[in-house]
C-alpha cells in the first residue's frame, strides 16, 4: 500500500476516528495551548524557572514539530528515530538496516551532527514537505550547517516506515543534544541504541524515563555487546528496564563484531531487528496503532507538563509579588519616617526656630498684618539689603530641612529595597540591574517637591479662607503669612516638649503663633488645614519614593499578566485534555508492536 495515496476508506480505518469528528477540535485546542505557552516567559530565577523555560521551549517544539503535523496527517509514514549515546553505533546500525552507507559512521565523537532521514522513495515526498519538524531545512547531502536534516531515499527500506539517525544525546556538542531531544520528541517510535559499556549511564536513563512518561512507543538495541557477555548484560539491562517500568519494550542484542568493507554489520546480527521493522511496516493497522499510541501518550503527557508550567508561572507571580512587597515595605518605611519627622514638630527646632523667632519677634508679623504695606516693605528691604525677607528666610530653612529629610528617605528606601532583595534568592539575581543609589536628579526633584507643596499650602489657605468667616477677619493678614504659619503649625501642632530654655521659649512663640492663627481661622479650621497640608506632603513624598523605586518594579514582570498566565495555562491544558478524550485516539494501553521471538 503506497502510503501517500491511501484509499479514503483505508484512511478512516487507519485513523480510527469516529466519523464526523475530525481532530479539528484537538488541533484548535493545541494551537491555543501553544500560543499560551509561547507567551509565558519565566524571567525570574525561581527554582522552577529554569526547568520551566526548558520545558516550555520543548513543548512548543513538540507541538510544532510533531503533534500538529501528526494530527493533520494521521496516515503519514511512521517515523522511527534512532537515538542514543555518542559512540553507541547508531549510524552503523542505520546503515546496516538499509544495507547502504547512507550516514557517516566513524571513530571520532560525536560522529553524526546532521541528522539523516532514511525512507522509502515513495515516502520521500511527505518528509520533504516540511510539515513534520518544520524548522529543519531539508538537504540532499550532508551539511555542517545547523538546523538541517539530510533526506536519503533508500529502496531497501519498506514503505510506510522511515528511519531517522539522530545526533547523540550526551556528547560535548550542546546543539547535538538539543537537536536529539527535539527529534526524539517527534518520533512515532523510539529505537534506543545503547551499548554494553553504556547501558548503565545516567543520561540515557533520564531520557528513557521521560519517554515512558510521555507514553512513547520504545524499542531498545543493545549494541556492541562483547561476545560471551551477551546473556549477562542483556539480563541486567532487562532487569533495569523492568525496574524502570519499560518491560514492554522489545530488546535487540547486537554483538560487537568487525564490519565489512562498507562499514556495515554482518546481516545475521541485525536480521531480527530488520525483520521486526519490516513486519511493522507491512501491517497498516499496527502502524496506525503505534502512531496513535505515541500521539495519545504525548498528548496525555501535556497535562502534567502544562500543570508544571502553570505552577512555575504561579511561582513567578508569587516571587514578583514578594519582591514588589519588599520594595513597598522599604517605601512605606521611608514614607513613615518622613511623616514621623514632620509630625513631631521637629523641623521647627534649630534653625527653623531661630527664623521663626526673627519672624515674630522682629515685628514682621505685625508688619505683615498690614498686607499690602508689609509685603511692599519686605520687597524694599530685600532689594536694599540683598537679604531675603524674614518670611522667606524661614521658608528657606524649612525647605532645606525638609529637603534633607526627603533625600535621606529616598536614599534609605533604595538601600532598604536592595537589602531586602539581596536576602531573597530571586531578588539577588536582579540586583545587578537594580539601582544602587537614588537618581542623579533627586536633589532637584526634592526641591521642586518642597516648592510645589508650599504652593499647595498657600492655595489651600487661600481657598479655605475664601468661604469662611475667617475671610473677613483674616483679610487684614497677608495670606502669605498665614500659609507660612500653617506650615509651622503642621510641624509643631503636636509636640513642643520643653527640654531646655530655648525650646520653651520657642514653644511659647509657637503657641503665640498658633493662637494668632486660631483667632483668625478658628481652632478646628486650623487643625483641618494642618491635617490637609500634612496629608498633601505625605502623598507627594509617596509619589517621590515611588518614582525612585520604579526601576526596581520595572525589573519584575507585570503582576496582573503574571497572575493571569497560570490560569490561562491551566485552561488551555484542560481544553486539550478534553479534546483528546473526545478524539479517542488510543483504545487501550498495550503497544501494538509486532511480536518478536527474542522477546521471551
Amino acid at each position, binding site marked *: 500500500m503506497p502510503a501517500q495515496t491511501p484509499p479514503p476508506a483505508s484512511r478512516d480505518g487507519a485513523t480510527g476516528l469516529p466519523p464526523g469528528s475530525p481532530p479539528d477540535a484537538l488541533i484548535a485546542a493545541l494551537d491555543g495551548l501553544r500560543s499560551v505557552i509561547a507567551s509565558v516567559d519565566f524571567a525570574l530565577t525561581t527554582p522552577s524557572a529554569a526547568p520551566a523555560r526548558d520545558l516550555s521551549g520543548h513543548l512548543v517544539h513538540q507541538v510544532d514539530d510533531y503533534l500538529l503535523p501528526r494530527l493533520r496527517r494521521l496516515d503519514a509514514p511512521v517515523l522511527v528515530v534512532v537515538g542514543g*549515546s*555518542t*559512540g*553507541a553505533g547508531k549510524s552503523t546500525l542505520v546503515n546496516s538496516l538499509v544495507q547502504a552507507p547512507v550516514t557517516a559512521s566513524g*571513530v*571520532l*565523537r*560525536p560522529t553524526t551532527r546532521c541528522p539523516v532521514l532514511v525512507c522509502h522513495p515513495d515516502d520521500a515526498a511527505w518528509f520533504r514537505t516540511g510539515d513534520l519538524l518544520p524548522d529543519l531545512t531539508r538537504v540532499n547531502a550532508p551539511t555542517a550547517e545547523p538546523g538541517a536534516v539530510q533526506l536519503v531515499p533508500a529502496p531497501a527500506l519498506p514503505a510506510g516506515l522511515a528511519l531517522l539517525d539522530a545526533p547523540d544525546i*550526551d*556528547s*560535548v*556538542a*550542546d546543539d547535538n*543534544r538539543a537537536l536529539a531531544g527535539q527529534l526524539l520528541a517527534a518520533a512515532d517510535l523510539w529505537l534506543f541504541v545503547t*551499548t*554494553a*559499556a*553504556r*547501558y*548503565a*549511564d*545516567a*543520561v540515557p*536513563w533520564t531520557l528513557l524515563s521521560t519517554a515512558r512518561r510521555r507514553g512513547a512507543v520504545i524499542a531498545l538495541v543493545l549494541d*556492541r555487546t*562483547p561476545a560471551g*557477555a551477551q546473556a*549477562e*548484560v542483556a539480563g*541486567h539491562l532487562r532487569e*533495569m528496564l523492568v525496574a524502570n517500568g519499560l518491560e514492554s519494550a522489545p530488546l535487540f542484542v547486537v554483538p560487537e563484531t568487525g564490519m565489512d568493507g562498507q562499514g556495515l554489520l554482518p546481516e545475521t546480527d541485525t536480521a531480527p531487528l530488520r525483520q521486526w521493522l519490516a513486519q511493522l511496516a507491512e501491517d497498516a493497522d499496527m502502524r496506525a496503532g503505534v502512531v496513535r499510541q505515541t500521539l495519545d501518550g504525548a498528548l496525555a503527557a501535556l497535562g502534567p507538563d502544562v500543570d508544571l508550567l502553570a505552577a512555575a508561572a504561579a511561582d513567578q507571580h508569587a516571587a514578583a509579588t514578594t519582591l514588589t512587597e519588599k520594595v513597598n515595605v522599604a517605601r512605606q518605611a521611608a514614607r513613615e*519616617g518622613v511623616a*514621623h*519627622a514632620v509630625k*513631631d514638630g*521637629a*523641623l521647627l*527646632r*534649630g*534653625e527653623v526656630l*531661630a527664623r521663626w523667632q526673627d519672624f515674630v519677634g522682629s515685628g514682621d508679623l505685625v508688619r505683615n498684618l498690614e498686607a499690602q504695606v508689609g509685603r511692599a516693605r519686605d520687597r524694599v528691604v530685600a532689594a536694599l539689603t540683598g537679604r531675603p525677607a524674614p518670611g522667606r528666610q524661614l521658608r528657606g530653612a524649612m525647605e532645606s*530641612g*525638609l529637603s*534633607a*529629610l526627603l*533625600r*535621606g*528617605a529616598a*536614599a*534609605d528606601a533604595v538601600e532598604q529595597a536592595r537589602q531586602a532583595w539581596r536576602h531573597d534568592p530571586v531578588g539577588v539575581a536582579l540586583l545587578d540591574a537594580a539601582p*544602587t*543609589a537614588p537618581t542623579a536628579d533627586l536633589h532637584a526633584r526634592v526641591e521642586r517637591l518642597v516648592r510645589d507643596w508650599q504652593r499647595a499650602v498657600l492655595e489651600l489657605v487661600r481657598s479655605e479662607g475664601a468661604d469662611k468667616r475667617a475671610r473677613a477677619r483674616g483679610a487684614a493678614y497677608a495670606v502669605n503669612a498665614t500659609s507660612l504659619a500653617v506650615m509651622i503649625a503642621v510641624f509643631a501642632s503636636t509636640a513642643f516638649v520643653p*527640654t*531646655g*530654655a*530655648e*525650646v520653651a521659649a520657642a514653644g511659647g512663640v509657637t503657641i503665640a503663633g498658633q493662637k494668632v492663627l486660631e483667632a483668625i481661622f478658628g481652632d478646628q479650621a486650623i487643625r483641618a488645614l494642618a491635617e490637609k497640608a500634612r496629608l498633601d506632603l505625605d502623598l507627594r513624598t509617596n509619589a517621590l519614593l515611588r518614582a525612585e523605586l520604579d526601576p526596581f518594579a520595572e525589573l519584575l514582570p507585570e503582576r496582573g499578566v503574571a497572575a493571569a498566565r497560570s490560569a490561562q495555562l491551566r485552561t488551555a491544558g484542560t481544553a486539550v485534555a478534553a479534546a483528546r478524550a473526545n478524539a479517542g485516539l488510543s483504545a487501550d494501553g498495550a503497544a501494538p508492536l509486532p511480536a518478536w521471538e527474542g522477546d521471551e
Partner: protein
Amino acid sequence: MLSARHAPPDPRRPDVDALRARIDAIARFLRLSGPHLDEADLSGPRAVLERAGRRLELSRDHTVVALAGATGSGKSSLFNAVARLELSRVGVRRPTTGVAHACVWGPIDGASDLLDWIGVAPRQRFVRESPLDGDDEAALRGLVLLDLPDFDSVAPEHRVEVDRLLNLVDLVVWVVDPQKYADRTLHQAYLSQFASHRDVTVVVLNQADRLSPADTDRVVADLSGLLAANGLGDVPVLATAATDPGRLGPLRAALEGTVSARQAALLRLAADVDVSVQGLRPFVGPAVAEDAVDRASVRRLAEALAAAAGVGAVAEAAQRSYRARALAATGWPPLRWLRHFRRDPLRDLRLGGDGGRGASSLPAPQPAQHAAAALAVREIAERAAESLPTPWPAAVLAGARSRLADLPDALDQAISRTDLDLDRRPLWWRVWRAAQWFGALAVLLGVGWLIADYVVRALALPRLEAPAAGVVPLSVAVAAGGVVLGLLLAMLGRPLVRFGAARARRRALKRLQASVIEVARQQVVAPVREVLQAYAQTREALTAAERRAR
C-alpha cells in the same frame, strides 16, 4: 612527557616553603575579609586551606594517583594491569566499582594515615610489595594508586564519592575509551574543572586495542582538541590497553616519573591555591589609599554634624554670654550687680565653666538634621568606596555607620569639652571697670560733699570753704562729672561689647567646628579607614597568594 617535567634538577619545581607562604596568604585573606565578604564565597578557599594543611602534614613520600573515568571505560582493568594483580573486580555488569580501591607500592605503614584521611577502607587497601618482583616494581615505590568509582552511571552515590576523592588525590589519571571520550559529563563536569590542575592531570585513552593504529591517532588528536577547548591543551594524552601489557609502557613511565619526583602533592596543592586565588580575585580591585576619604566630604559631614549638634545655638549662646559678662564687668557699678540676677545663656545649656562632665542641655538633634547627617555619612562612604568591587562599598558604608549610635553622645561631649573662653577677661574690661569705679567714687565724693555742706549749713556750723569750678561748686561738678563719665563709658562700651560678642561667637564657632571635625574623624572617618585598610591588606594578601612567575 611527565618524567621530563619532573627531572630532579628542574628549577621550576615548587618549593614547600613558597607553597606554605601562599597558603598563609590565603588564610590571611580569609581572616581579613571574613567580616566583610559573604561566607558562601569563602567556603571554597576555606576548604582548600583545610585540605592543604592536612596534606602537607601527611606523608609527602607517597604520591596518590587516582584512576577516574566513566563506567565501562576500563578503570579497574587498568588498575589491575598496572598492579599486575587481580585486585579490583572487573565485570560486564555496569556500574562495577562502587567504592575506591587502593594499591600501595612499598610498605603500607607510611601510607596508612594518608589512606585514612582519603577515606579508603582498610579492606580495600592492597600492598604491592613482593620479593618475587625483584626490582621490577622498585621504580613505583611510594605510589598509592586509587581505582575510583564511575561518575556517570545511574548510581548517583558513585558520583558523590568521586567528587569527594578527586579533591584529595595528588594526580588524576582520566581513563576514557573510544566510545565515551567525548561525553558531556566527562568534559563539562570534570575535565573543564581541572584546567588549573593541568600539571597533575593525565588523560589515558584506554581500550586502544579496539581501534586501528591510524584510528587511534585520529581519536587521540580529536581528544587533544577537546581537552584544549577545556584549557587542558598541554596535558599528556596516552593510548593504553589494559589487555595488552605492551601498551602500558607510557602510563607506567609517567607514573614512575611522577613518583620519583615527589612533586605531585605540591603541584596539586599549588593548583588548588591557584583556583582559590582565581575565585577570590573578583573581590579585590584597584588599589585604594587608606586616606581616600576626601576633605570636601569630611567638611560636609562636619557641617551636617555641627547642625545636628546645635553648634549654631551654642555659638549664639556664647555671644550672648559674652555680652552679659562684658556688661556685668563694664557696666555702671550701682546697676551692675543687678545683672548677676540674670542667667548666663551658656550655663543654661550646661556649657562653659564647669562643662565637660555631665551631658549638656542642648536640644536633641531632629529628624531633618539626622537625615542630613546620615546623608553626609553615606556620601563619605560612597566617595571612599567608589572604585571598590562589589561587596566592599557595602562594607565601607557599614563601617561608616558602625559608631553612629555613639555619635550623639560623642558630639555632646565634644561640645561640652570645648573651651569657649568664658574666663577670658579682656584688658579693656579692667580699664573700663577702674574708670567706672573712678566715676562712681567721684559721684559718691561729690554727693558726700554736698550732703556735708548741707549738714553744716543746717546746723549753722562754720561754712566750709568750698572751691568752685567756675559758677558751679566743685562738689556738684565732681558728682556730675562722675555721672557723665559713667554714661560716657557705658555709651562707648556698647560698640566694643557688640564687637567683642561677635568675635566671641566666631571664636566659639571655630572651636566648636574643630571639635566636631575631630568627632567626625573619630566616629565616621576612622571606621571607614579601617575597612579601607582591611581592603588594602586583603589585596596585598591575594597578591602574595598568587603564584610566583616561574
